[in-house]
């Protein structure tokens, strides 16, 4: 870039409303482009310049990857308008939800379908993953071919044998060289998916290269709940109002249509509770 003073967002070449996933991808991209043996630098950049830039990118990532530090940075640099700030708070920050008891949380009682702004954002994000948005998004989703693949985290045998699994989520265990479905494939599956059961959510999470820990970290949902959602272990989950909020957070994090995901999940949740009661 040409400017002298750059914001962290400019250094990583991402929009100020970039998701955690986008920030991560951008950082890895910069690291790889400026690594010592990168061919892309040949004849253009000198070593000191590269080193300086890598350090800048690391600093930018250190701050932006941390929700608290990022918020502070944004406020300090006036990056978010008040309305945007509110919107982001509404979407990401679950830590303001009171503990399990008490039902006075306004945030959670807002039905997801009325969250028009977030829905628009969501459809933009879907476009983004499908590689159909504008130039800025192209790097994370190759328009012509699927992006680089990475080894799939192993799906435990227990999960695979669960009878509730959809056929397409069953993974060939015989072949150890199995690679993750690429983002493009996953996005295609998301488009046709209707049930969004736990194992499917898990599959998407792994395709997005997020660990349970990272998910818990960014959404402020306890790890045990993340696991319970993915295993559809309804007994381990708290009161419906919280569960709904968790699932929405979870789905937004993965750029899934959160209203559909949460509705489907809550239907199963209530059904399970009802069966148990009767």
């Amino acid at each position, binding site marked *: *870039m*040409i*400017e*002298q003073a750059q914001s962290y967002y400019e250094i990583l*070449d991402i929009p100020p409303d970039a998701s955690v996933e986008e920030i991560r991808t951008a950082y890895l*991209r*910069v690291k*790889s*482009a*400026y690594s010592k043996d*990168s*061919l*892309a*630098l*040949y*004849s*253009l*950049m000198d070593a000191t310049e590269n080193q300086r*830039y890598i350090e800048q990118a690391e600093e930018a990532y250190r701050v932006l990857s941390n929700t608290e530090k990022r918020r502070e940075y944004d406020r300090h640099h006036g990056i978010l308008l008040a309305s945007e700030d509110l919107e982001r708070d509404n979407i990401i920050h679950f830590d303001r939800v009171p503990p399990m008891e008490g039902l006075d949380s306004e945030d959670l009682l807002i039905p997801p379908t009325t969250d028009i702004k977030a829905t628009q954002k969501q459809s933009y994000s879907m476009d983004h993953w499908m590689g159909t948005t504008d*130039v*800025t998004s*192209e*790097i994370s989703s*190759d*328009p*012509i*071919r699927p992006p*680089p*693949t990475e080894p799939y985290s192993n799906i435990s045998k227990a999960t695979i044998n669960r009878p509730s699994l959809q056929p397409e989520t069953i993974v060939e265990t015989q072949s150890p060289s199995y690679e993750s479905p690429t983002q493009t494939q996953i996005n295609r599956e998301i488009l046709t998916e209707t049930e969004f059961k736990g194992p499917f959510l898990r599959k998407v999470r792994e395709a997005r290269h997020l660990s349970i820990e990272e998910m818990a970290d960014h959404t402020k949902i306890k790890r045990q709940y993340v696991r319970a959602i993915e295993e559809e272990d309804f007994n381990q989950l708290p009161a419906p109002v919280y569960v709904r909020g968790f699932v929405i957070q979870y789905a937004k994090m993965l750029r899934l249509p959160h209203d559909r995901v949460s509705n489907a999940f809550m239907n199963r949740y209530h059904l399970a509770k009802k069966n148990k009661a009767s």
Partner: protein
Amino acid sequence: MEGRLDFIQDTDLETRELLRLKGETDFLPRAQAHTRVRQIWAVGGGKGGVGKSLISSSLAISMARMGHKVVAIDLDLGAANLHTTLGVDMPDRSLSDFLLNRANKLDDCITATSIPNLYLIAGASDSMSVANINTEQKQKIIQNLRTIDADYLLIDLGAGTNVNTIDFFLISDLSLLVLLPEPTSIENAYRFIKTAYFRRLKLVPSLSPIFPIIDAAMDPKNNEGIKTPSDLFKEVNRLHPELGTQLKDEITKFKPKLILNQVRTQTDIDIGFSIKTVTKRYFGIDMDYIGYVDYDSSAWQAVRRKKPIMTEFPTSKVVSSIDRMTQYLFKRHGHLRNDL
């Protein structure tokens, strides 16, 4: 100093023609508003042998198959061989006929190919080369390109960074850059981008106060210590702060598209992303990485047979990659006018 002034005037004159024909300026009424040609696509890349002609001909075939009338033009004047990659014997008519006034219109130089909808203007077969055509001849080509009876023109450019080649690249609506994941090709591609980049800036008359700074930046051993576009920008902001924003605007208008050819591994593919990242930082330009073509021996087999790979090996991965790129370009950048 006098020489420099001449150059500015010369550039000024060309600008009016070049950018007006492209429809990019608003300071002059757009000429030939009812031209038949919807878009000009140009394929360049700096280094020779990176597959420009092969990719040009394949894209042209792909576009024609999608139902557009396409004329492929070989502007690699000294080393024309687009006709060979299209499976056409050296035609009787070529661009030289037009340049030497043996033909009145570019339309008269067109040769049909075996592919429906696809036509060819072959490169010169005589001693004429792109480096030695003069400014009038270049202007003559540029001014007449959009009068050709076709939906799309596809220009195959020669290797090197000759000013004529660069200008043909710049007057196109869509500039495609082909390179290989190899240091030599990357080096030449960067030189090509750099040359086109500065040339592009010098085609804007209102930036004329900063032309001396641009000239300095183009000379790697300049006294002002301007080494990178970023230095140029700082210098402009220091001396002519009023032009800083405009300079930035002009830079963002320059958006070449990147195609990586002959990739063998995922690492090769990723080089395209890295190049995009690095050019964004170094030049401040958004280069769209539109796709890559796998290394495939059917490419040279097709050349041996003097036939297009698109028709000889319809199932090869090259063909599907090219088709996807064409679709993408039509969708993203194609001219959607339906009034013709």
